Structures are given as C-alpha cells and as structure tokens.
C-alpha cells in the first residue's frame, strides 16, 4: 500500500492562512446560528451539524479549485460552504423556501451549488460515493483537469458501495479524492461495534489500492498541506487518493443539542476534543505568530456575523414554494 507524504517545506501564504481561519469561523457561526434558532420549528428538516469538524471542510474546500467537483453526505453544510456554496441559498433550503438551493425539495441533507462545483449531498449513507466516482469518470472522459472530491464518514466505510466504488476508481485511475472524516461515531454507535477494533481505515483503503494518507482533522494547516499534495498528485494523473482525518462532532448526531448526557459517549471524551477546537487552536497560532491582530479577528467575526444575519433574514423573508409545484420535475421534459 502506498502512503503519501505531505510536503513539509510547503509554506502557506499568509493570505491563505487568514482564509482558512475565516472559513472555519464562518462555518462555525452559521451552524451555531442554526442551532440557536432550530427550536423555533421553522427549519423543519433533519439537520446534521459539523460544529467541531470545521477544519477539514475549510482546508479541503480551499485546496480544491472552484471547478472541481465535490459531493457529500447528510452532514454537508460545512462541505458545501467550504467549497464555496451560496450561503443564502443553503439557509433558505433548510427553511424550505423557494429560494433554497434545491428550491425546497431537499432540505438540509440535499445541498447543491453547481456554480461552485458542489454537485449534491444525499441522505442515504454511502450512496453519494459512486456518484462522486462517476463525476471523476466524466472528467476523465471529457479530458478536463477537474477532480472529484467525495466526502464520507467512518460509517459510510461500512457500506459495500464504498469498497466497490474505490475498487473501480483504482482500476481506472480516476481523478477522485476520497475524503473520510473519522469522527468515531455513526449516530450513537462507536467504531468498535461496527468495525474491527484494530482497524485503521486508511490502511483498509490502501489495501483496496488507493494511495492514502491520514492526519489530525483538527489541525487545519496540516489538513490543507496533506490535501493539497493529494490533489496535486491526482491532477498529475496518479489516480485516486484517500485521506482520513480524525475529528469530532460536538453536538448530537442530528439536531442542535449537546447530548453527552444520554450515555453513548462521555463528557470527558467530548471535553478533550473541545480543548482541541480547530478554530481556537488556529486563531491562537495566527495571533501568537503575529499574522493577525485581535482587531483583525474581531473584524472577521463581525463581517461573518453580518453576512449570516443577512442570510437568515433572506431565508425567512423568502416565500415557500407553491404546493402546486410539487408535481413538477418528476421527469425532465
């Protein structure tokens, strides 16, 4: 199995560093706001938050080109925003409005922004994986330089379709990046009841034939560096790559609350991860390195807050689609 190594010398430009922090803060703020207002009962669809996992989505999004493809899962907000998906259209979609990115048809679990290369997210575990591989096949057939990034979780690894999709991607050397966020849980189920205790997911992926690497999903710079190297390799025609990043979901699997009290995981485990908040870690790093001042951070925060408030106002002030529209788009005419 071939391991791929990040390029340590690669220095990240200061501008990019600020973008990394900005993306993470923006995603966090959006999701905190969703959490805060979810109880109002106006966002009436199952909603899976990525709070705590922002580093991967931000770094991967910034490593990809806008015209690269990305496809995701039920937990797609961060991936969508990281890839450059339209914020207002996402919030409107969660509110079920006509201005939503899927015109209200799909809700939180069905995000799309074709102008940003975000082709879609689905609500069936694993079933967007082959879609992403198919996008990679299309890029190869069209002879473009695009790559296809497939976001998946540690649970999706258990679906046979992951294995089948990865095998085909290797056989055809397709430009596909499999991006696995291992947050150690599938709903309330820890890895040990689902996969062999001593398994390393990236090693399994390597045995299928993918070139693999793994890293700390809460260290945004290392995610950025590892991912950039992988993407470069793919673009240079070295075939599909698999990246596993360890990270942690702070809140309940689906919904806005904390649920460390209900017993499937411990408060201590949560606090250990919270202590490694990818955003705080990075913010402190940039501050101490003198790359940003507290003022810069405050401005960043303020601009984000303003943009997010606007997005929610946009959503809430948007109309619902007409009930009569529900019969449309069964077939493309």
């Amino acid at each position, binding site marked *: 199995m071939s391991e791929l190594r990040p390029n340590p010398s690669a220095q990240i430009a200061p501008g990019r560093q600020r973008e990394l922090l900005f993306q993470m803060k923006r995603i966090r703020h959006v999701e905190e706001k969703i959490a805060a207002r979810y109880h109002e*009962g106006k966002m*009436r*669809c*199952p*909603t899976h938050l990525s709070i705590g996992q922002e580093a991967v989505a931000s770094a991967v999004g910034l490593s990809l080109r806008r015209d690269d493809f990305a496809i995701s899962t039920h937990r797609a907000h961060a991936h969508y925003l990281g890839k450059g998906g339209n914020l207002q259209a996402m919030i409107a979609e969660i509110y*079920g*409005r*006509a201005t*939503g990115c*899927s015109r*209200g*048809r*799909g*809700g*939180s*679990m*069905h995000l799309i922004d074709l102008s940003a290369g975000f082709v879609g997210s*689905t*609500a*069936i*575990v*694993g079933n967007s994986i082959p879609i992403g591989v198919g996008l990679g096949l299309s890029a190869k057939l069209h002879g473009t330089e695009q790559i296809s990034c497939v976001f998946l979780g540690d*649970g*999706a690894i*258990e*679906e*046979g*379709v992951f294995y089948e999709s990865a095998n085909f991607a290797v056989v055809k050397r397709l430009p596909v990046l499999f991006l696995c966020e291992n947050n150690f849980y*599938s*709903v*309330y*189920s820890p890895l040990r*009841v*689902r*996969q062999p205790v001593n398994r390393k997911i990236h090693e399994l992926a390597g045995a299928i034939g993918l070139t693999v690497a793994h890293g700390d999903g809460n260290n945004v710079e290392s995610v950025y560096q590892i991912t950039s190297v992988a993407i470069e390799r793919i673009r240079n025609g070295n075939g599909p790559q698999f990246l596993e990043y360890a990270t942690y979901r702070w809140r309940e699997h*689906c*919904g806005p609350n904390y*649920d460390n009290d*209900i*017993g*499937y995981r411990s408060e201590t485990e949560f606090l250990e991860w919270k202590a490694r908040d990818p955003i705080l870690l990075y913010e402190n790093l940039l501050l101490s390195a003198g790359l940003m001042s507290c003022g810069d951070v405050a401005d960043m925060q303020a601009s984000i807050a303003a943009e997010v408030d606007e997005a929610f106002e946009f959503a809430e002030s948007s*109309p*619902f*689609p*007409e*009930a009569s*529209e*529900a*019969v449309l788009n*069964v077939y493309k005419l």
Partner: protein
Amino acid sequence: MTFVQAINEALHDAMAADPKVICYGLGVDDPKAIFGSTKGLKDRFGPDRVFDMPTSENAMTGIAIGAALNGIRPVMVHQRLDFFLLAMDQLVNNAAKWHYMFGGQRSVPITIRLILGRGWGQGPTHSQSLHAWFSHVPGLKVVMPTTAEDAKGLMLSSIFDPNPVLFFEHRWLHEIAGLVPDGDYRVPIGKARISREGRDLTIVAMSYMVVEAIHAIDYLAQHGISCELLDLRTVAPLDWDAVFASVRKTGRLLVLDTGATTGSVGGEVVARVAMDCWDSLKQVPQRIAMPDHPEPTSFGMTRGLYPRSEDIVTTVNKMLGMNVAIEPLVSQRRHPHDVPGDWFRGPF
C-alpha cells in the same frame, strides 16, 4: 399502551418465550432504542441476542437469512424503509425464494421491521412506502398494522411465522394508543379486520390510512352515511375473501393506500374487485393514494400532499352523490399538516 410500546412488549415476550429469537439493526441498543421499541431488550437478553450492526444493510440481511436457515429467528429493523433498498438482492433472490428453490427443505423465518417516514422534512428518501414492491414478490409476507393491539399480535405472528415477513410501521402510528392484551396472542397474518361495519360503501385501507378513514367514517356517520372499513392489516397475502365479501355487501369500493398511486396495492385491489365482483359493483371503484412524485422536503410543498380524511369525505360525496361539508372536519385539526400530533417534534 402505544403502538411502539406494543411492539416493544411483543419483542420482549417473543425473546423471553424463545431463545432463538434475536434482534439487531442500527441503533437497537442505543439511547433512543428505535423510538423506544427495543427498550430494555439488551439488558434483559444480552449482547449476543441484541446488537447494533455496521451500516451494511445488504450483508446484514443475508446474515439474517443464513442464521434463519439454521433455526434462528432474527428480527431486523431499519429506521427508514428507504435504507432497505440496499438489500433487495438478499430479500428477493434469497429470502423470498429459498424455501421454493430448494424444494421446500428449509424456510427463512426472518422479520424485517420497516419504518415509514412522512412529513416534517423527511423528504424524498426518508418517506417511501414500497409495500407494492414486496407484495409483487412471491414468497414474502407483508404486514401493515394500524392499531397497537394488531401491532403486538402481528409482531408475534411475524416472528414465529416460518416465512420472511416485512413488518411496516408508519411513523405517524407510533404514538397512537390503544388497549393491548397481555401475554402471547397472535393476530393471524393474511386476515383483514372489519374496523367499522357499514352498508353504503366499502373503504379498504392499510396502516396510517386507516386512521384517516376512521375520522372520515365517524364524521360521515353523523350525516347518516354508513361506510364499512376494512383494515387490511396484511397486504401479502391479502385477504381477498374479506374484501370481496364487503364489496358484495355494499356494492361500492374506495381503496386508500400509503404508497404512490401508479402500481399501488390499491390498484391491485381495484383490479381484483373489478374482475371478481363485477356483478356486485353498483358503480366505478375509486382509489386514493400518494401522488406519483417523490415527497418534497419543504413545509410549503407538503401542504395538501397527503390524502386526509377530508379527501376521503370528498370522494365519498362524489360516489354517493352527497355533499357533506368538509370544513368542520378540517377545522377540528389542531396541528400543522406535516406532523401527526404534538408528540412529533422531529427530526425523525
């Protein structure tokens, strides 16, 4: 006792009565215990008989079949029927045919619980009611209870049936309460229940649509219209004798279905009744089912999507040439159109 509690009781009773009954599925032993339906099972019967599983619906179905071939009685659960689509090869090519294709030497006593989502943003892939698929496959049994009493009695019958049984649970029924007998009683698979006796018209329904029918019928009764309501309870094998007997009595048929209209079980009922009760029919049979498109997620778009009691009344009006007002019925409703009641606060 609620529908979901009745299922929990049935599982407890079955596992206590027979050590060969096992129960698994995503989340059976987690804090939510499949909406409470598997509560207490692991503590009482241990981790060998009650366990969580990998997200591997296809293999886990085949594993249930294999275990069943050697005397185990697995009860598997999917929090949404939609996830079970991954296992159609195991269901159709193995479970449904094993007894037949090996000359009747071994059968496959598995029970697969399929929960149907609806409303509150469940959307296109968390809301499908594909019982028509399963009733089209010889060798499968499909039960769709409405009441808590039938839920327990049919769950026990399903678990101890020697054949593969698909046990449908409409999410909107989970909190519906009813009297449930103690202990082991079996509601026979393949027998419908006359839920309301009536003269003028026969309404055939299953699962949650029975609830809407009851609202409509009791309301119509106040206006002197007497409808007979047949709760199919099982859609495969379907209780044709009961359907035909009722239609021969009333001469009129209205079928309700929780699935998409075209190719629905409701359509098969209309077809058989047309072919077998031709001379008894006083007028053209009718069908009310879900429209032929996916369920959208938006609150705005699901308005008017689901056939409700008022739609039943409207159709009965047409069939009997009456015009009972539907407003009183509609205005009774206290909660938004996308939830079954205040108890449902999402997400699933």
